[in-house]
């Protein structure tokens, strides 16, 4: 039960699944959920937020989430999430080209937040003219912010308020950073299954690597870096909630039978201090050999791709 403590950011915002229209969030329901999980500190935090007529003030919630994601981007910069994504993405795009998968290749970042990784790739990725970078999120203020930022810096990428799995132009590659631990059990299966069924060629999902040191390391680090209480709370909790490599690989193999699946940096280490992120990697079976070849020495960190 403690393992499934929810993150505050998952509770305080809600969307109508079909239209992505923002739904009102009754404050007392959030407080009750937090109390039910024994999360009194989190409940006290949300209890202080404005709630006209018992509904959490959406603009206030947006401002908190925006500040939290600004701080999250700082962590992404320090953790070099863009570079990390590129290291697995470039060989993947090369594989598609060599195997004559028709382009242009649409890299769709699921739950892109402020779009840091997509914008970084647009700025530094050198991914080629046949590649389009698209960030998707349900949160409209994030997307308009990401769009403005990209325009301000002249970056070639797009952002959309959309369910990444229901785009009119489908994705070639799905990516994400720090998103999959938000999906638990059946919803993880649904998340992975939807992308498996979408016609995409591959996926790369990065997330915190769960090790015995991750919770304490994450606590110290977030304590030092985060000012926004929600960012501190959710950041620390997400290290606890991170899925194990086995859970991820098993779920992806179960739900994406047409894909060869592996976990990059999933290997257990005695003193787990160097590898703080892992990546769930999936490629269509017919691309497996070519991708392993293109990965070169990185293939050794992938474990089994099966």
């Amino acid at each position, binding site marked *: 039960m403690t393992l499934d403590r929810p993150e505050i950011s998952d509770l305080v915002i809600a969307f109508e699944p079909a239209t992505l229209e923002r739904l009102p969030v009754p404050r007392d329901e959030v407080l009750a959920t937090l109390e039910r999980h024994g999360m009194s500190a989190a409940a006290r935090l949300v209890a202080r937020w404005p709630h006209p007529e018992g509904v959490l003030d959406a603009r206030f919630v947006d401002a908190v989430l925006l500040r939290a994601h600004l701080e999250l981007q700082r962590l992404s910069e320090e953790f070099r999430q863009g570079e990390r994504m590129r290291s697995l993405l470039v060989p993947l795009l090369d594989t598609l080209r060599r195997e004559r998968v028709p382009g242009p290749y649409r890299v769709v970042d699921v739950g892109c937040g402020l779009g840091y990784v997509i914008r970084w790739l647009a*700025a530094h990725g050198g991914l080629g003219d046949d590649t389009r970078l698209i960030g998707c999120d349900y949160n409209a203020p994030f997307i308009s912010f990401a769009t403005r930022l990209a325009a301000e810096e002249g970056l070639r990428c797009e952002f959309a308020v959309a369910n990444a799995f229901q785009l009119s132009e489908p994705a070639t590659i799905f990516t994400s950073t720090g998103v999959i631990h938000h999906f638990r059990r059946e919803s993880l299966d649904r998340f992975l299954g939807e992308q498996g069924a979408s016609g995409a060629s591959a996926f790369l999902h990065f997330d915190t690597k769960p090790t015995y040191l991750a919770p304490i390391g994450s606590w110290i680090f977030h304590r030092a870096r985060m000012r926004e209480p929600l960012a501190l709370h959710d950041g620390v909790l997400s290290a606890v909630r991170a899925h194990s490599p086995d859970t991820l690989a098993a779920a992806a193999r179960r739900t994406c039978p047409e894909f060869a699946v592996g976990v990059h940096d999933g290997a257990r280490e005695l003193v787990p201090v*160097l590898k703080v992120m892992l990546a769930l990697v999936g490629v269509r079976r017919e691309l497996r050999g070519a991708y392993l070849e293109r990965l070169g020495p990185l293939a050794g960190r992938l474990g089994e791709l099966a």
Partner: protein
Amino acid sequence: MIPALLAVLAIIDAAFAGFRAAAGRDARIFKRAYYQRAVLVGVGAGVALVLALAALTLAALVLARSPSALYAELLAIGARMLHVFLAYALLVVAALVLYATARRELRILATVSILGPFTLLRPLVVIVATIRGLGGGASLPAIALTVVSSASVLGLGRLLDRRYGREPPLT
């Protein structure tokens, strides 16, 4: 030498405080200029603080019954404090060098296990240095000057943080 070292450390500390105050508030990709400005703001604030503390110390010396005795006492306190500060600074510099030069994984080790925790420890380090500085017993003016200096170094970080917190997130 001792006052100069303390002043330089205080200004460097303020430069870092400027960086920290600016970090996590600007989502652009290219931010070298943004961070440079933040560091400069920190340096400026640090210089101003050092000048103010120097003026305060000067005033105390002028007013003291025996300026040379007070000055000698302040030097001794400063020397003891420097031991603590220099040890801290050395570790931070080592971690920064590692962060700047190492490959990605080691870099992250440097930031997670040293730079992060050391940011957290900073107030404690200043407090420990102050206690150590005053440990041998000190006169009232010396205690007052030391405590005010330490407190203002810590306060400066907060001030810079507040200042950046007031700016809206995008340009």
